[in-house]
């Protein structure tokens, strides 16, 4: 696949072999013990805590960039061309960017579009995945066949290529457009997983029992199948956030995503290209923040998958 992000599909393939749902115990009991066990296991891991702290910091930066900027550096939004490209110094830990603005402030501001993109795209894809997965897995038939073909087609379109083609012709390159495009290209992975989970569960004994007792399809789907089917999908969703952030940055870097004067890590990396040999700090700091954020999501997703996998017990 492309040399840019593939993690959602890759993670999807990894999660496509989740443990078969435990059909012996009724759902609520299973959730209590499996969830509790998972929480205990997650709590114990230092990598999880590191990831949580990092993400907490990133969220703080996205929500209130001004406060953190004033806390950590002098200068804030003041830009002076004379300071252009200067390296780190006492009052300015990240140095200055091309325009002579304080780099730390800029990098902090770059947090917001990345996090918003990552979370919005994943939330939208998750919603689509749950609805389509439930309907297709449960009803099967022509709906399932149709949606399966459509997902096959979308899978045939490597991510960067597809995004590029769309964005080249798209008039608007704002964050909203980016979210739309990324969702359109990313809904397939989680939908496939959800669908296969639903198919496996729809045949479960407790679902059949509920059906015999007269439960209507909507109730069956929402109360009985959904809570059990959703766990591997949630794990993939967590991994997906990291992948979307990475993908969005890549598109910005290639010049097909957000445009100046928007601020994002991808754009900062794009600007830093030409000066990487003489002024490595221009590349280093946004790269660090970007990698740390993606890494945190992936670590959390990995840890969640291990914690929820009953086979590893």
């Amino acid at each position, binding site marked *: *696949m*492309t*040399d*840019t*992000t*593939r*993690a959602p599909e*890759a993670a999807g*393939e*990894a999660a496509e*072999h989740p443990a078969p749902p435990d059909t012996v115990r009724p759902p609520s009991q299973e959730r209590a013990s499996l969830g509790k066990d998972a929480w205990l296991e997650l709590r114990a891991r230092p990598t999880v805590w590191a990831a949580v702290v990092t993400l907490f910091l990133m969220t703080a930066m996205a929500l209130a960039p001004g406060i953190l900027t004033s806390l950590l550096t002098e200068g804030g939004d003041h830009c002076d061309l004379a300071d252009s490209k200067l390296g780190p110094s006492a009052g300015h830990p990240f140095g200055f960017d091309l325009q002579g603005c304080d780099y730390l402030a800029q990098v902090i501001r770059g947090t917001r579009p990345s996090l918003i993109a990552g979370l919005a795209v994943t939330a939208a894809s998750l919603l689509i995945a749950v609805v389509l997965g439930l309907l297709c897995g449960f009803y099967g038939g022509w709906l399932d066949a149709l949606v399966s*073909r*459509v997902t*096959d*087609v*979308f899978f*045939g*379109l*490597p991510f*960067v*290529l*597809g995004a*590029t*083609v*769309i964005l*080249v*012709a*798209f*008039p608007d390159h704002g964050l909203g457009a980016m979210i739309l495009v990324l969702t359109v290209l990313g809904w397939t992975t989680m939908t496939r997983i959800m669908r296969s989970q639903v198919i496996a569960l729809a045949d479960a004994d407790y679902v059949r029992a509920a059906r015999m007792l007269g439960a209507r399809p909507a109730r069956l789907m929402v109360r009985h199948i959904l809570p059990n089917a959703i766990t591997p999908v949630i794990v993939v969703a967590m991994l997906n956030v*990291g992948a979307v952030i*990475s993908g969005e*940055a*890549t598109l910005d*870097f*290639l*010049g*097909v995503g957000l445009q100046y004067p928007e601020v994002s890590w991808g754009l900062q*990396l794009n600007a830093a*290209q030409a000066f*990487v*040999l003489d002024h*490595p700090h221009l*590349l280093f700091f946004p*790269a660090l923040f*970007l*990698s740390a954020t*993606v*890494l945190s999501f*992936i*670590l959390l997703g*990995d840890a969640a998958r291990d914690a929820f996998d009953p086979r590893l017990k």
Partner: protein
Amino acid sequence: MWRFVARRLLHALPVLLGTTFLIYTLVFVLPGDPIQGLAGDKPVPPAVLAELRARYHLDDPLWIQYTHYLTGLLTGDLGTTFTGRRVSDLLADRWVVTLQLGLTAWVLEVILGMALGVWAGLRKGKWDDSVVLFGTTLVISVPVFVVGYMAQLVFGVQLGWLPVAGTEEGWPFAFLLPGLVLASFGLAYVARLTRSSLIENLRADYVRTAHSKGLSRRRVVVRHTLRNSLIPVVTFLGLELGGLMAGAIVTEYIFNLPGVGQQLFQSIQLREGPVVVGTTTALVLIFLLANLLVDLLYGLLDPRIRHD
């Protein structure tokens, strides 16, 4: 066996059609004037606009337009640039470079990735396993262009081990560093996949049976678990080949390799719509064909699929 092949081919056809249709639709049927959109910010005189409209049959109904597009594809016509050059000519010399890069990256993924994965899988829980796990997670998280620049900086400039850019040194030296960078994500993924697949198979019942037959640990791992463990990995690697070629954009850019990806990148920057569409279509077709081949290979490896 042949029924299996026929079925897979039949399955692939609608996907091929669907994907090309999707690309076509996305570019030509989006709201707004597609010709203006393709031209981007460049001012285009009305006469040229009218001529382009005629050439792209934009006044015809959608299905006719798509049919023209498709028949064009079948004859190898990937479209024409605004200056009248055929896209397929533009790309002619570049395929070789991309192929060399893609193959190098693929071979690195296969050898290094599987070796790392097997080693980590056999040493599960020990510190070298943790190192591999953490290292691969790190590589997966750091975006490729960052890895590319860092590699170029460290190995090319500071250490001087490998050429920094360009194809002067020829194959393989000019392609080792970019190949490694291009392979990085896939390598990390292959290592992890091999590892987890091996661990899972080592726990399987038939491994216990193999031990009960008095076979040495080495034979159990090599003869009984490796082949089973490699099935998902081979599937991934097969998909990789097409995909690596389909998108070495960033790598070719960083290392200044005159391949298809570099052309695509430049066309994106210059907003040359037809080139972008034509190149993308070609790459996607390669990707899909590679997928098909992998599907068939999978059937060869796993007898259970064959007899489906």
